[in-house]
């Protein structure tokens, strides 16, 4: 069969930012998967809850509010440097990318540290009963996200200082920020479940 060229794409740019990029959709796929895990974890929590007249069962105290609430605030505030990183990346502004990534990392250290206190103030161990198990599972799942995101953001930030650097790396920085939004927003329902479900239900 003969071929008839009908389209010349040699002038198209070698990549794009945001939802035009391939990696954006890959990230979205990961977000869907992990949201489903979180949602099912929450469903399991309420499934177990529905079987008891009092929750937490067996006279266990609800988790202390202060550390979880503090971390919620820290996470929400971290969205600001995160958004500034994202914008700097879209403008291919290396100086600002470096500054805001370092600020983001400082926040990441902060809420990873506060997370340790959260675990210490859950007032239940994972092997006490199923309530303890599900609370540790929910908090543990989210902790996996903040730990891994801290690690991969560190690597990316390091790369932005050492190179080798090309324009595509800024798309990576932007995707990293998009994922960060997910990690913070996913925390809000989990915070509500862990800290408020035992108080309100």
């Amino acid at each position: 069969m003969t071929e008839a060229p009908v389209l010349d794409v040699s002038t198209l740019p070698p990549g794009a930012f945001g939802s035009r990029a391939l990696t954006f959709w890959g990230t979205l796929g990961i977000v869907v998967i992990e949201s489903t895990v979180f949602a099912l974890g929450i469903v399991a929590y309420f499934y177990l809850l529905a079987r008891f007249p009092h929750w937490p069962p067996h006279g266990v105290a609800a988790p202390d509010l202060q550390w979880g609430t503090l971390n919620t605030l820290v996470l929400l505030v971290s969205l600001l440097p995160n958004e500034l990183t994202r914008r700097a990346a879209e403008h291919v502004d290396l100086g600002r990318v470096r500054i805001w990534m370092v600020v983001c990392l400082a926040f990441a250290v902060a809420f990873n540290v506060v997370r340790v206190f959260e675990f210490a103030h859950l007032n239940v161990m994972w092997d006490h009963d199923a309530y303890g198990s599900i609370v540790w599972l929910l908090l543990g799942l989210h902790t996996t996200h903040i730990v891994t995101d801290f690690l991969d953001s560190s690597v990316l930030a390091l790369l932005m200082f050492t190179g080798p650097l090309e324009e595509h790396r800024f798309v990576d920085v932007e995707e990293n920020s998009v994922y960060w939004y997910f990690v913070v927003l996913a925390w809000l329902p989990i915070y509500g479940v862990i800290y408020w479900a035992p108080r309100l239900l």
Partner: protein
Amino acid sequence: MVGARGIAFPRLVAFSYWMLLFGGVFLYGSLLLNAGPDVGWFSYPPLSESLYTPSKRADVWAQLITFTEVASLAVAVSLITTTLKLRAPGMTLNRIPIFVWAQVVTSFMVLFAMPAVMLASTSLILDRLVGTHFFDVEHAGDALLWQHLFWFFGHPEVYIIFIPATGIVSTIVGTFSQRPMFGYLAVVLSLVSTAFMGFGLWVHHMFATGLPQLGESFFTAASIIIAIPTGTQIFCWIATIWAGRLTIRIPLLWILGFFTIFVAGGLTGVMLAAVPLNTQVHDTFFVVAHFHYVLIGGAVFPLFAAFYYWYPKITGRLLSERMGTWVFGAFFIGFNLTFFPMHLLGLHGMPRRIYTYPESMGWGTLNLLASAGAALMAIAVLLFVMDAIRSSVAGIAATDNPWHASTLEWATSSPPPNSNFHRPPTVAGREPLWEHPTEQPIVAGLRTDARDVLVTHVLDAEPDHRLLFPDPSIWPFLTAISTTVLFIWSIFTPWGVVYGAVPVFMTMIGWFWPKSAHQGGTQPWPFADRSLPRPNEAPAAGGAI
């Protein structure tokens, strides 16, 4: 089929492949070492809990799940992205081949279904390893929670197996009828609605657990309703065959076999959806007969058809027609000989999951018949494997498009060159190869010395930008090895997860770390002006010639 030069995230797909392979080796290796799972494919607690399974067998099962999860989720993400962003210019959503639709719908089901079993198996291994109590009734847990999580995955899984098969059927029916699919929109909507409804059926695997009446009624209704979209598809296939010029070749034979067997399995499925009948034949051979008619009829027959259909594209040679007729005949007769008697056995009360029964039950003759049928199927498969090997070297050479099909994979040579198309095609209709029989419109301007792909817009597949795919790399393989070490280590001690995470992290950095400043094909730092467009900017001029 979407006219792309490659699949999105090729390294992720490589990683996924290695994970699936290592998971499979791990499973069969554990069987050889007599340490394989022995708690059923559904691994119900309390049987699978430490108290009743103190060995590592249930942990092997749980981590095997994790292997396959990681592998299938990675591929699902890749397939969805490929279909959304790498379609040939002009392939709008309503021109996507039905097989591709089927794959995308399946991939979305994977995204939503697999996390359930992942959460379940993780909870199980935590129960067994660090003493949590998710499924332990004595400590406020609930064994039924396992069943809910498992079947929330388990029932959609049936459709994850079945929907790609319907895509194969649509493709082959269209090709051998030599006419466009009747009711394209109805078929695509059927696929999508099947996927949605597939998530509303899981409790019908639990009718015998004493759930509330209202719940049972709801899930009965849902189980019957899901027959509607499948029925719609079957009628569309019949209409396509009816109005087309039918050429009977081996792939079509398997599809016709699929029709017969799958419709029979579907009918017993509607019977099983009714709670009274379900309770009566629960755990009998009637159920065994039903799901073999549905799964072998619904997935294995189309898979054989697909193998015969795409074999020439993969190898450049055709399989033998004469041998194919024998294989099909032996398999079809053998299948019915094996599984039809099981309906009767089940109605006579023969339970599932037993390997023997008293002679006085009078089930001997029908079981003998079933064994004979199984032997016949085995012969068919043996002949098939022999033919597949022989034809790969001595088969008749295939042309680019031996079946005169309409989709883009037939526009390239058989077997295709590395990166599928030297110059990728464009599309102006739903059946591109039937619309431009002499001249294939193509895209010019992509590099031929590198993995340069064209990224298009999600809805209308207008060209957007070019992207340089990464070269082959050893790192996905190394990452798969370190992940495998972590998974197997975690069977024995929870510290395996902690220490094992270090090599995983290091291999992932090795994977990510750029080897040069030109790797992505964009300008290296420092540069003055931005060349990559932002989301809301107009696309650069890449125009018609």
